[in-house]
């Protein structure tokens, strides 16, 4: 066989050949004949990959950028894990009211590593929300949403909402008591909106009650719609981050920008290691549970939403009768709109917190309110007037 037709393998090339292929360009006809490009060069010509990698590694990091800027990449890593564990879970899950609970039970108690993989997915979602909130707060306090990064922020807000959508739809899938009742209450929130409330509720539930069509709707959103949206939004977000580069500290620090590699990338890797390690630790030490099968006729414990919706849950408790729309619509709506329009509400030129006081004060007030309400929800045990099971008069006829 003539040598030129041998399969491409960079490792078997002679040293001269290797050297040859790394040359920038073969000039003479003869040289083109001889210098078969390495696989790397072959791909590079077609993909432009090495340029991309080099640009990424050389991405300028202004002096003062450090640990706080690792959260975005942590989120990407955790989301990748979430996609993978979600895909794996979907192979054992069955989205029907007669089968969902059994399939999750099987995953949790029978399938080898099932409890662990489910634990990674469950705890991953919690750590993602924590990282997301921290990332958002750091961008807020650094004022990084200001010109020209308004749209980076805006896309980020949409990502935030998509993530909350993931957790709301995912919570129903095990079809246990907690899942069912949190969804009954959570979807009813839609019905408190004047005029369109009832049709909206029917649309979300796929009918007047939470049932088999609610489950398939939530499943379709959780595994098709939301991932597609998230990937698209993340792509735009990252493109914009690269386009405008990371903003430096609010007080510009002395020193030249450093390339992303190696210092920042190393910090990113450490944070990813800690974040993923935490998820693994939680999945092993607190494996996910499953409550009793969903029972539309009753609840024995107070149904509670996922912890990051507890603030809203507490808010609902303190709203007087007839004003629930304030808790279900007005306040969450105002917070969302405030987040969406933040770059245009905050007109100050400076990113320094001292020079955009009202925004910072309002922001801290909102954060404190949400934080305190969430804390209250976490500390709250079910209301004391609900007695232990067995006290009430429950007669079952028929």
């Amino acid at each position, binding site marked *: 066989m003539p040598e030129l037709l041998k399969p491409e393998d960079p490792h078997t090339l002679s040293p001269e050949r290797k050297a040859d292929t790394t040359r920038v360009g073969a000039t003479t006809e003869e040289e083109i004949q001889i210098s078969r490009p390495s696989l790397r060069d072959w791909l590079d010509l077609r993909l432009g990959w090495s340029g991309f990698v080099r640009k990424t590694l050389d991405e300028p990091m202004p002096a003062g950028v450090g640990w706080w800027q690792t959260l975005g990449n942590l989120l990407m890593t955790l989301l990748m894990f979430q996609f993978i564990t979600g895909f794996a879970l979907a192979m054992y899950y069955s989205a*029907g*009211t*007669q089968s969902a609970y059994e399939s999750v039970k099987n995953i949790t108690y029978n399938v080898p590593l099932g409890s662990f993989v489910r634990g990674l997915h469950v705890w991953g979602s919690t750590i993602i929300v924590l990282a997301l909130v921290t990332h958002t707060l750091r961008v807020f306090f650094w004022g990084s949403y200001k010109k020209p990064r308004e749209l980076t922020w805006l896309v980020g807000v949409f990502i935030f909402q998509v993530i909350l959508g993931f957790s709301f739809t995912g919570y129903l899938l095990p079809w246990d008591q907690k899942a069912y*009742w949190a969804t*009954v*209450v959570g979807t*009813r*929130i839609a019905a*408190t909106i004047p005029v369109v409330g009832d*049709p909206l509720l*029917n*649309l979300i*539930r*796929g*009918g*007047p*009650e939470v*049932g*088999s*069509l609610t489950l*398939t709707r939530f499943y379709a959103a959780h595994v098709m719609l939301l991932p597609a949206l998230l990937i698209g939004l993340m792509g735009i977000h990252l493109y914009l981050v690269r386009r405008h580069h990371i903003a430096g500290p609010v007080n510009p620090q002395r020193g030249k920008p450093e390339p992303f590699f190696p210092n920042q990338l190393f910090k990113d890797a450490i944070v990813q290691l800690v974040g993923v390690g935490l998820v693994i630790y939680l999945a092993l030490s607190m494996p996910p549970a499953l409550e009793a099968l969903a*029972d*539309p*006729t*009753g*609840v024995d*414990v*107070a*149904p509670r939403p996922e912890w990051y919706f507890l603030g809203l*849950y507490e808010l*609902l*408790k303190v*709203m*007087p*009768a*007839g*004003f*629930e729309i304030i808790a279900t619509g007005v306040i969450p709506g105002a917070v969302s709109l405030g987040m969406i329009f933040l770059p245009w509400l905050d007109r100050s030129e400076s990113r320094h917190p001292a020079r955009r006081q009202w925004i910072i004060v309002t922001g801290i007030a909102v954060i404190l309110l949400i934080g305190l309400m969430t804390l209250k929800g976490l500390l709250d045990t*079910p*209301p004391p*007037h*609900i*007695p232990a099971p067995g006290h*009430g*008069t*429950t*007669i*079952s*006829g*028929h």
Partner: protein
Amino acid sequence: MKDSNTEQCSCCNPCSKDEVKPDPKSPDRRKFLGASVGIINVGLLAAIAGPVLGFIASPLGRKRSSKWVPVAALEDIPEGAAHEISYKLAIKDGYQDITQKYTVFLTRQGDDVICIDPACTHLGCRVKYQDDQKRFFCPCHGGVFDAEGKVVSGPPPHALDRHKTKVEKGQVWIQREV
């Protein structure tokens, strides 16, 4: 270089001027074709959005009807306190026919029976009846109702819903939506 088009060109071979230059001789044709592409795209969007949205929103068109259901024998309901009764009903749940268990509270005064639905009027949790306090308590956001179903305290906006009842030959029937 005179022509900015050639300068900006990102492909590897030097490209000729005419390749990227708009055709100045027929601006109307350009406009027409551009508008056509726009219209075609709107048509494509409508072709997919119309059927899919109609498909997704179909539960909105479903009519509910009411039905009388026998739930208990009158003599089984003691006078006074609200009594939780459960009954089964064959319903259509999306793609499947199932037998769903429901509960209601029945209160009897002589031959009159009132039937209270256990769904809290706030956001739909199931209320529980406390015999000793003669009150309904909601486990979710602390709604409290009296034995008649009227709001005592908490966020619920109005009294617990009632179902129509009738008593025939010692049998209590309630009317409910299916």
